[in-house]
């Protein structure tokens, strides 16, 4: 159904929301982890460099300069075996000129302030180092590479990326499945209601199966639909029985009258009997009209059995049927029918509504009056006459059952009631207004409908 197509499914916001939440959670967790790892490894790096500086300062204090140089040499030799984060040393004089160590140039660290920090050595190696002044002409730098820390952070990032993709996909899938299940369950209720709109009460709503809120909704809807179906069936049965029981004796009466006519009783009697038959049939028609009004009113908004009909063609057909009668009644009858005005409806019912409306106008407008039938896109149907018009107090009442115009003797007074019942079933409304002179009936879509 197009209605479903236009409506946004509840699945999409649910899935998008869950996915966004999962993504945000992963990002926050990653940021916190990164921060902890970074600060912890920085602290460890700092500690190891500070311990080294303290140890070398100790050696210098106890063993003097020669001992320091020897130990620095030992450390560099031992380090040669490799290892992830190598240490680097520089023993320099007051001008920064190298005495021992593997660092070529004094780095951007102040020995006077015993400065520590991240820096880059002359050969481009990034390190964390500390400088210190052991004697007025003796300076020391101990530094350590931190490639391991960078790799660790990279690995953590990669782990988070992979885990994040996994979690995101899982959340997306779970949310999709959950929301889709929810939608399927709600959709069953919707489908049952749509079936009712199409007149199908027989398709019972199956039980929900689960005792949650949607289950309760489904059960409520199911019971309501079931009851509605019962009421409608009962109403139809009673209607059919009443119609059958009243019409059957009329059928017999008609048959007997017809036999009399066929026996060939003189022309005057034949005409009289013909008129009696018409009367008898009028009772059947009255009954049908009443039942049609009741049925149309009960099915207001029920679009079962509707199809796209050409209102212009219907109006032209009815106008054609009435044109000759109008001429005979001395009424100036015109039509102004826009082509291709269509609507979803019941062709026969709409024909009947138009026929009743024209019938009404021709009967009440009077000789010499003009009657105009207008069909406009919208759809809008207007029947305008230049007759005596309808008193203001009557303009609503004429659409009620058995209402009659002030000076009328003919008809059952059901014609306009049926018009209203039919147009309302089509989501339209009929109103009556004064035009000076005459009356103007307008059929147009219901407001807000």
């Amino acid at each position, binding site marked *: 159904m197009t209605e479903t197509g236009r409506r946004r499914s509840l699945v999409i916001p649910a899935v998008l929301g869950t996915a966004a939440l999962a993504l945000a959670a992963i990002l926050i967790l990653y940021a916190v982890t990164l921060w902890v790892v970074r600060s912890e490894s920085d602290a460890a790096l700092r500690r190891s460099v500070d311990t080294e500086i303290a140890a070398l300062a100790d050696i210098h204090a106890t063993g003097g300069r020669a001992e320091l140089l020897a130990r620095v040499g030992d450390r560099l030799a031992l380090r040669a075996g490799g290892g992830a984060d190598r240490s680097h040393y520089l023993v320099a004089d007051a001008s920064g000129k190298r005495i021992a160590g593997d660092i070529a140039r004094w780095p951007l660290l102040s020995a006077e302030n015993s400065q520590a920090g991240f820096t880059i050595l002359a050969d481009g190696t990034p390190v964390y180092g500390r400088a210190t002044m052991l004697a007025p002409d003796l300076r020391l730098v101990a530094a350590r590479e931190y490639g391991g820390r960078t790799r660790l952070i990279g690995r953590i990032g990669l782990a988070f990326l992979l885990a994040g993709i996994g979690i995101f996909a899982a959340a997306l899938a779970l949310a999709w499945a959950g929301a889709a299940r929810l939608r399927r369950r709600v959709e069953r209720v919707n489908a049952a209601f749509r079936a009712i709109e199409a007149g199908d009460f027989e398709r019972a709503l199956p039980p929900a199966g689960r005792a949650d809120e949607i289950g309760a909704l489904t059960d409520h809807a199911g019971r309501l639909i079931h009851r509605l179906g019962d009421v409608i069936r009962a109403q139809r049965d009673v209607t059919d029985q009443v119609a059958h029981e009243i*019409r059957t004796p009329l059928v017999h009466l008609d048959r007997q009258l017809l036999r009399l006519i066929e026996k060939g009783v003189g022309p005057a009697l034949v005409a009289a009997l013909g008129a009696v038959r018409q009367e008898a049939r009028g009772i059947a028609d009255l009954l049908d009209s009443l039942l049609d009004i009741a049925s149309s009113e009960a099915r207001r908004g029920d679009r079962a059995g509707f199809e796209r009909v050409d209102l212009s063609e219907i109006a032209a057909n009815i106008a054609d049927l009435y044109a000759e009668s109008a001429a005979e009644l001395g009424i100036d009858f015109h039509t102004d029918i826009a082509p291709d005005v269509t609507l979803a409806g019941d062709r026969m019912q709409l024909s009947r509504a138009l026929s009743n409306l024209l019938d009404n106008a021709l*009967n009440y407008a009077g000789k010499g009056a003009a009657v105009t039938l207008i069909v406009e896109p919208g759809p809008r149907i207007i029947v305008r006459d230049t007759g005596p018009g309808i008193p203001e107090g009557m303009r609503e009442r004429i659409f009620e059952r058995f209402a009659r115009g002030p000076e009328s003797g003919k008809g059952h007074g059901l014609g306009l009631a049926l018009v209203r019942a039919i147009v309302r079933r089509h989501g339209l409304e009929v109103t009556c207004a004064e035009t000076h002179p005459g009356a103007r009936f307008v059929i147009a879509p219901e407001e807000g409908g």
Partner: protein
Amino acid sequence: MGGLTLLYVEDDPRMAEAVVRATAEAGHRLDWTASGADGLARAAAGPFDVIILDRMLPDMSGMEIVKRLREAGVAAPVLMLSALGRAENRIEGLDAGADDYMAKPFDPPELLARVRALHRRAIGQAHSAVILFGDMECHVKARTAHRQGRHIPLSPKEFALFRYLMENAGEVVTREMLLRHVWNLSFDPQTNVVDVNVGRLRRKLEEGFEAPVLETVWGTGYRLVAA
């Protein structure tokens, strides 16, 4: 078209009597039964040109019979008769598988016309391109009417009316039949719109000629007669 073989299922003997008489007068052979079950059995057994079914039978509804017949592969056209004559009831009957639906009370000529029409449709026989009756001619393709060789100008709806009368020439056609076939309407407008339209056609067919050709059958409808 010779006499047809018809099956009629109707529990109301008075109703049945009228239909039996009307069909016999028209030269058809009619099998009547009051029981739905019996009707179903007979319909399944013998070939019938048209089956006429009452909708409400004591033992089985006409709707049920149509459904079962269609399931059993019986393709004979079915005309359903019913005291339920509202548009909704008609739609129900047609949906059940009936080919036509007629409300009671009806006029026998209408029943006969519908039976003929159903049979014609079933055997795929269409009217010829030119229908001749008395001194009148109806040229279906050219959509023209002639009497005594003289062209009679008609509006499209007048021609449709003339053509339908010509197709049923010599038979009574009712107002209901005209409304149904010419204006495609299945309800009866309260006023005498049909009579007025027929009156206009009559003037065109009879003005300037000696003999009347379109007669009113009181209380029933109209009949085209040979001048």
